[in-house]
């Protein structure tokens, strides 16, 4: 799928790493990399690495946060201090908290929380190396880790970031593309798709994009998510 040509041609004709516009970065997965966790997974897409560890369902403390109707899901996303060229100050920050919340909302769509009242499922996502698309890599890793932890789920979740460089739509944005400044500049749209119902569980946009282009971008994201979903399944089936 190539760029939409309306008034004039897009300035972004070739991707910085030579990929096709709808091509994902090379993906590597690993299940059960954290022996102390109930479930864990690693998802590597190009240079971006996300590690997710799942604990629980376990009793929730403080007690007043417990819900006798259903369990709660807690996501903690953090980047390691050496993950980016400029050292990231360790510990939670505003960006991390927001992404944690956004991932939590996306994943709570697929976890069956009603089956374990008064408990909590903790998901910890760490980024040892960042090259854009960390939240989507985090979701992919977390979904695999949740399945590996034996948490009841309606379906799996897979996520990808689609972008618009000037007038060209691309899948799985890398850092260099994210910083693209020519023409209309760069737009970054992380999308999370649920595997069975094909619902969109996460949709953010950072930049300018027209409605038509957004529709087209979502189609591309759906295709890419289905590819990622297959990779996730393969990883889980081969893990022992």
């Amino acid at each position, binding site marked *: 799928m190539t760029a939409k040509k309306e008034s004039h041609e897009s300035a972004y004709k070739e991707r910085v790493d030579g990929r096709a516009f709808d091509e994902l970065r090379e993906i590597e997965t690993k299940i059960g990399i954290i022996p102390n966790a109930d479930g864990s997974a690693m998802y590597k897409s190009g240079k971006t690495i996300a590690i997710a560890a799942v604990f629980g369902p376990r009793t929730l403390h403080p007690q007043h946060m417990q819900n006798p109707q259903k369990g709660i899901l807690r996501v903690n996303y953090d980047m390691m201090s050496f993950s980016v060229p400029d050292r990231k100050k360790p510990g939670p920050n505003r960006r991390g908290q927001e992404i944690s919340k956004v991932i939590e909302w996306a994943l709570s769509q*697929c976890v069956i929380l009603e089956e374990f009242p008064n408990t909590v499922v903790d998901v910890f996502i760490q980024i040892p190396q960042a090259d854009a698309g960390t939240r989507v890599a985090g979701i992919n890793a977390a979904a695999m880790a949740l399945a*590996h932890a*034996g948490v009841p789920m309606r379906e*799996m979740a897979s996520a990808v970031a689609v972008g618009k460089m000037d007038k060209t739509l691309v899948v799985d944005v890398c850092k260099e593309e994210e910083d693209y400044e020519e023409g209309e500049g760069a737009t970054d749209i992380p999308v999370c798709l649920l595997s069975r119902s094909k619902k969109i569980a996460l949709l953010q946009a950072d930049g300018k994009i027209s409605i038509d282009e957004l529709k087209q971008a979502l189609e591309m994201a759906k295709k890419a998510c289905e590819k990622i979903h297959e990779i996730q399944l393969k990883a889980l089936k081969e893990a022992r």
Partner: protein
Amino acid sequence: MENNRKIITPGEIVIQGEEFLPGDGTRREKEDIVSSRYGLVDISEKLVRVIPLSGVYSPRRGNVIIGEVIDVLFNGWLLDFGGSGNGFLSINECPRFINKDELQDTFDFGDLIVAKIIGIKSKGIDLTVRMRGLGKLEDGMVIKVNPNKVPRVIGKEGSMVNVIKEAANCEITVGQNGLIWINAQEIKNELKAKKIIEFICDNSYTEGLTEKVKEFADKLGEES
């Protein structure tokens, strides 16, 4: 049988057809039986189940578990057994009379207790020690394994446990929550039993496991 034991992931269709019944880890969505868990498919006649491969222990009535005393209350004890909740062992479920002021003399903080689950309510899990083989663990060692591997350690009608008992000349109590108590005259034998159990957990889901375990036990015997 081939198709019967494949690994399935959440959201995948296990089987299609109105005649099948969804069991543990599955649900019905119109015609399809959909998996909700990651595990092995088990279809026996019309019942479709998913046997979990990993995850925390989910308590069931009648299970024998090994738990640690984490609290002494006025009418019983609170036991932690690694599940999603704690178990409550009432003073009434003890085989002999206990003075309410001296609960700690019977079971104290940190004691490991073999107990049986007699009821699961929304409020909590009730335990009992009023049966043979239940009660406080005094000697021996306790090891922890993945609770999903416990059925392998026990084997068909306890066949695997008997193999270990014979090979290592020891007593074994397997808690469904993944804690295993081993007691022998000599520490050497306890360590041997531990090695065999670890072997079982590493090689679970292979064909003819009992025979392989027997071989492994013989090899261990020659070395020592």
